[in-house]
């Protein structure tokens, strides 16, 4: 390990949302959206956050992009703390860190042309002074994401979902960021188009040395895209490991259950499914000890009493299970 800081370092991130309570009543209920999450992302690396709805994966992404304030914890970019920065202090950070969301229909202003949409970050970061310079840059960006230069004169509604997502990616690339947060960026797309966008993201990453925080619920896509994966459940990281290690030897019962629940496009696949019973507990009132214990086939009394810490199982494979050795 070198001493150079990772591109992104998240330490003990906590996000709680107070709920209920009107103007005059003090609310005491909180949603524990993210509890004590730590991870890092190296330059040029893809880290995926996977988990089911409500596991806090998107909240982590939003905290990282400083779209919402965090409750506790530290976030550093290249060693510099960004969690406490003011709006104006955040501006240079925003140039280096961009987000692509799931729904390309609501992320693009329908009244702006594609040229204006893609030129907006260039203008706001002062990256292209003249109109001609911007025009040329926008054309280059569109070509880079597989659209024709001529597309810039058109409006977002004239494009299909996949093409709109390409426009969103061009916009995210405009400020030449170090990292892009993709929040379910391919989830709304049809299979054939999804493959195009996944390939595009992987090509761009290779060419530009981009790091990606890839937030998704689709394990097959995640396996395809990622260098490392963090599995979240109810706001906590259950397991974090590199791709090979996680998919070949999951060391957490939740990861194992998730993997076995994915329907395989192969009717002759022979596998025994560990179908989890019950629902995810409420994040307002999470269970004591291990959050997964209410659905875990391996749970014992110890799991109700003690919160399992993330432990290194060797070669950076971390699992938050008391019985990780036996999984």
């Amino acid at each position, binding site marked *: 390990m070198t001493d150079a800081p990772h591109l992104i370092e998240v330490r003990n991130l906590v996000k709680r949302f107070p709920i209920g309570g009107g103007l005059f009543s003090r609310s005491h209920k909180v949603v524990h959206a993210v509890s004590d999450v730590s991870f890092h992302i190296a330059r040029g690396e893809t880290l995926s956050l996977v988990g089911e709805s409500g596991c806090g994966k998107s909240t982590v992404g939003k905290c990282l992009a400083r779209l919402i304030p965090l409750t506790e914890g530290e976030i550093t970019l290249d060693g510099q703390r960004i969690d406490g920065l003011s709006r104006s202090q955040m501006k240079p950070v925003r140039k280096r860190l961009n987000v692509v969301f799931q729904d390309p229909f609501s992320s693009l202003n329908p009244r702006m042309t594609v040229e204006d949409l893609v030129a907006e970050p260039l203008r706001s970061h002062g990256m292209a002074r003249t109109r001609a310079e911007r025009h040329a840059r926008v054309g280059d960006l569109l070509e880079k994401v597989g659209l024709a230069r001529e597309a810039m004169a058109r409006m977002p509604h004239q494009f299909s979902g996949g093409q709109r997502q390409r426009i969103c990616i061009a916009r995210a690339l405009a400020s030449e960021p170090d990292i892009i947060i993709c929040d379910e960026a391919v989830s709304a797309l049809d299979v054939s188009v999804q493959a*195009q966008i996944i390939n595009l993201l992987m090509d761009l990453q290779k060419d530009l040395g981009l790091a990606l925080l890839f937030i998704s619920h689709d394990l097959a896509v995640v396996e395809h895209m990622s260098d490392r994966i963090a599995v979240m459940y109810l706001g906590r990281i259950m397991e974090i490991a590199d791709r090979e290690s996680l998919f070949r030897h999951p060391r957490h019962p939740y990861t194992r259950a998730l993997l076995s629940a994915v*329907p395989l496009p192969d009717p002759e696949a022979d596998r025994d499914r560990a179908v989890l019973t019950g*629902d995810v507990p409420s994040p307002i009132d999470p269970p004591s000890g291990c959050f997964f214990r209410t659905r875990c086939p391996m749970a014992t009394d110890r799991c109700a009493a003690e919160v399992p810490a993330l432990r290194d199982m060797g070669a950076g494979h971390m699992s938050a299970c008391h019985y990780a050795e036996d999984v």
Partner: protein
Amino acid sequence: MALLEVRDLQIHFRTATGVNRAVDGLSFDIEAGEALAVVGESGCGKSVTSMSILGLLPTPPGKIAGQIRFRGQNLLNASESRMRKLRGAEIGMIFQEPMTSLNPVFTIGQQIGESVRLHEKASRAEARDRAIEMLRLVGIPSPERRVDEYPHQLSGGMRQRAMIAIALACNPALLVADEPTTALDVTIQAQILDLMQDLRSKVGSAVMLITHDLGVVAEFAERVLVMYAGRKVEEATVRDLFRTPRHPYTQGLLKAVPRLGSSLGAETSVRLAEIPGRVPDLSKPLRGCAFADRCPRAQEVCHRIDPALETKAAGHLAACHFAPREVSAA
């Protein structure tokens, strides 16, 4: 006679830009007790087909031609009161979004009981008992309590279970399920698929499952129908389709899906096979094969002549000029 016979179904919508041929000459059968999956991407016409079977497509703006015969009777000529008698009693339905499909101001029990009271003339008390029984059948814990709860009090998975309970309350002969697990998390999806499979064997309903997820198809269905641009391009048993897909579109789809385990062990990252381009605009007349513009095998003839659906192997249909045909096939 199959339970459901669809013959040369045409569903057209008049739009500002022209006539949109959402479904263009679709024919298929569903046998009693069978699980048929209809797959395809957005806009291929799979959902409008299911809506037309249920008589839920407003006409106009829609224009439906062809035949949809249920137990030999053409539903397209059926009166609204006849359709009301069929829906919920003989043809059940499950939609993708359980929150918008359930009525927020009635309890779960009232909504399950509604169809029982309507179709079987059951009393209020009988309907409530049936509702509790159905909730137990679909695996909702403490059904005696849940029966009096409202949809917002249930989780997404439980709401979908409640939807299934409503759909199956009158033991329908056919269950039309439009993306029933798409909005659910994988662990809940696995529960719901297991439940649907289990109930299918208990109740004996035929299921028409509409989905875009090839994994769900492989796990659930017996036969598959692949749609593209409003047309059927391939039909086969699940096993044959996944083993030897014959239409280039199906082949492309199967290669474009990232699969668990497929990219492990590779030194460099594996590229997914893309299907270039996009779905044709259905409001413009199509000449030749609808897939020709995106097809790696397209020849000049593909842009001119629309390929007919042909039997390429026993029980395996494909609409492609160049799909290989097995020697033994007629």
